[in-house]
Structures are given as C-alpha cells and as structure tokens.
C-alpha cells in the first residue's frame, strides 16, 4: 500500500481473528501528523484490536500497515519494539504506572529505557509533569495520588519521548467527567503543539468531541465518517 502524501500512519484491509472470533474484518485507518482521530464503536467491535495492530503490539493476520513510509510487517521484532519505545506513546485506562517507582521516575522511565542518564531523564520528565499540572506529585508513588492525577502522570509519561503517534485506549474511562475533560484538554493540546498524531479509542461522545474526526468500527470493519458524508 502507498498511502497519500502527508499520511503518518495508514492501514488497509486489516484482518485479525482470535480462534473462531473475528476481531478485524477488513478494517482501514489513516492519520496525519498533529491530527486527533477518535475510533468509536460498540464494545467488542474491534476498536482495541485495531489500535493494537496499528501500534505494532499485535500482528494482523493479513493487511497492510504503513508508518512513515515503512511497512510494519517488514520490520523485525527488535525494530518494532524500538519504534514503540521511541516514536509511539501509550495511554491506557488504568494500571499503567509502576507502583514501586515515584511519579517522576515513572514519567522518566521510557527515557531511561532508551538509555538517557537519570538526571537528564528526570529533568525532562519534570518539565512534562509541569505541563500536565502534576509536578507537585513528583516524589509521590502512584498509590498516593488520585485517579485523575495518576492519569495525568501517565499522559506525561506517554509524551516524554516526544512521540510522533500517541495511542490512547479509553484514557478517561476510569475518571469523573471533570477530570476526564481536563486530561483530554491537556493531552490534545500537548499533542497538537508537538505535531503528534493521537489515535483515541473511546465510546464516549464527550471524549470523541476532542478529536478532529472519527472513524466507526462495527463488526471488525471501519468507516471513515469524514469520507462518508
């Protein structure tokens, strides 16, 4: 597949089954730098599987995924994990912070895994925590902060490597609406100013309203609503 110029990440005709269960049945996707695309659809429609395939976490059975001109299927496992560590950022619903580390150590972790010295990594981590308005929690452990605060720490961690694509799977699913909205505001503002793309899986319309456009996944097939209207 050759995606149109300017496309950062594109997928075509993705198919994925888990045993007899068909999760993706010819799904497609595309996103540009600085764009926020919501992936919507009912539970079990294949939204999360699509995100996992796009992020190179799960290989599709067939179909094509092209990131920045490179076919994901053509990369080795090592290349794919390097891509995930340096160019992709992840925010999930919960359970993503390491409980034994302080918040600043959690945010600095992706940089440390990429070989950055501790002091330098933590300085960068603190700058992101400031942007996400949680720098005062630097020395606390995840168990000592609220759900909304913990999620902002997780967003700071997803952004610290300055990724080009952020994958967010129900990032506000465990938060009340006020905290959820603040997380969405901060996440989308930070991503847009860094010209990063955000793939946002959500079933909540108020969260999807922070996106630029949406695709709908149903029965493993996707529909780009911008092109549909």
């Amino acid at each position, binding site marked *: 597949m050759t995606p149109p110029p300017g496309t950062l990440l594109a997928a075509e005709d993705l198919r994925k089954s888990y045993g007899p269960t068909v999760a993706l049945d010819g799904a497609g996707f595309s996103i540009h730098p600085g764009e926020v695309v919501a992936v919507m659809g*009912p539970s079990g429609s294949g939204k999360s599987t699509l995100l996992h395939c796009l992020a190179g976490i799960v290989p599709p059975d067939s179909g094509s995924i092209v990131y920045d001109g490179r076919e994901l299927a053509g990369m080795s496992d090592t290349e794919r994990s390097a891509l995930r560590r340096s160019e992709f950022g992840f925010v999930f619903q919960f359970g993503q912070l390491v409980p034994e580390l302080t918040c600043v150590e959690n945010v600095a972790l992706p940089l440390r895994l990429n070989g950055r010295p501790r002091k330098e990594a933590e300085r960068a981590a603190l700058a992101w925590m400031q942007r996400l308005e949680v720098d005062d929690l630097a020395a606390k452990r995840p168990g000592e902060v609220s759900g909304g605060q913990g999620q902002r720490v997780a967003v700071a961690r997803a952004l610290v490597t300055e990724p080009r694509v952020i994958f967010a799977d129900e990032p506000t699913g465990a938060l009340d609406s006020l905290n959820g909205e603040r997380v969405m505001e901060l996440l989308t503002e930070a991503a847009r100013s860094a010209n990063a793309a955000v793939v946002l899986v959500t*079933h909540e319309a108020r969260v999807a*309203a922070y996106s630029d456009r*949406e695709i709908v996944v149903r029965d493993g097939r996707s529909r780009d609503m911008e092109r*549909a209207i």
Partner: protein
Amino acid sequence: MSIGHTLLGLLESGPRHGYDLKRAFDEKFGHDRPLHYGQVYSTMSRLLKHGLVEVDGIEAGGGPERKRYAITDAGVTDVERWLATPEKPEEYLQSTLYTKVVLALLTHRDAADILDVQRSEHLRSMRILTDRKRKGDLADQLVCDHALFHLEADLRWLELTAARLDKLRAEVTR
C-alpha cells in the same frame, strides 16, 4: 417530524387508501398523537400536486369517493433524500430519528448507516461546543456543557438503538 415523508415511506410497500395510511401511521408512529383525517387528505393532495404520489384507483361507494394512492419514482427519491439527510442536532429530535430508523427497516434500507451519519453530525456540533468551551470563561463553559450533555443524551439513545437494530427490525417487520 415530516408527516409527508413518513406517509410516502409507508406507501413504498404498496398502494393504500387514505384511511389505511392513517391507520398504519397511528400504529407505527402516532402512539400519543394520532393523525387527523384532514391532515392525511391535505398531505396527500400536496404530495399529489408535487408528483410524489399518484392516484392508483378510485372506489365509488355510498359515501365519498375513496382514492387509492401509489408512490411515484420521484416520491421514492424524495424519501431516499430525506432519510439520507442528517437532522440538525437539537433537543428532542428522537421522534424524527426513531421514525427514520423504523422506516429504513421497513423499506429494507441500511438503518445503521442513518445512525452513523447522525452520530457524525452530532459530533460535529459537539466539537464546536468543546472548542468554544476550551477558549471561553466559566459562563461559556457552563452554557456549552448544558448543550453538550443534551447532545450526549441523544447519542446514548442512538448507541442503544444501534445495538438493538436486529431486534427492532424483527418487531417492526412482524
């Protein structure tokens, strides 16, 4: 709700007399507000004038003449266009949307498609409100939130309906 389009949609399954149309309308859509005969006949004469229906036969009886109406090709196109056009997002639109969904099922069109297009139209409004909220003061935020919650309620109804389409199809086409 557009009574004209609804009556036209009901005619798609075959020609009917005005009385039959009223009965079908009341049964499917007029639970709380049945149509008056006058409404049916004035609507039908308007549709006739615009070439969207034609008289398929006249039965002479003891009382007034009973006309049987059939939908024309232009009428089918008109229903098609109405179903495909998303409603302007506003409060209490469910009855129109409900009618569209049921008619789509009755006429073997893609009801899920109607819901997808409507969701997109709602999200378009929600994006504008979210952006206004982000840039505005607290008063703006509260005003926008009020509108957002109403739109969200519509969308929750829409998602629930989407999840129950198969069941609804079985019921309305019984």
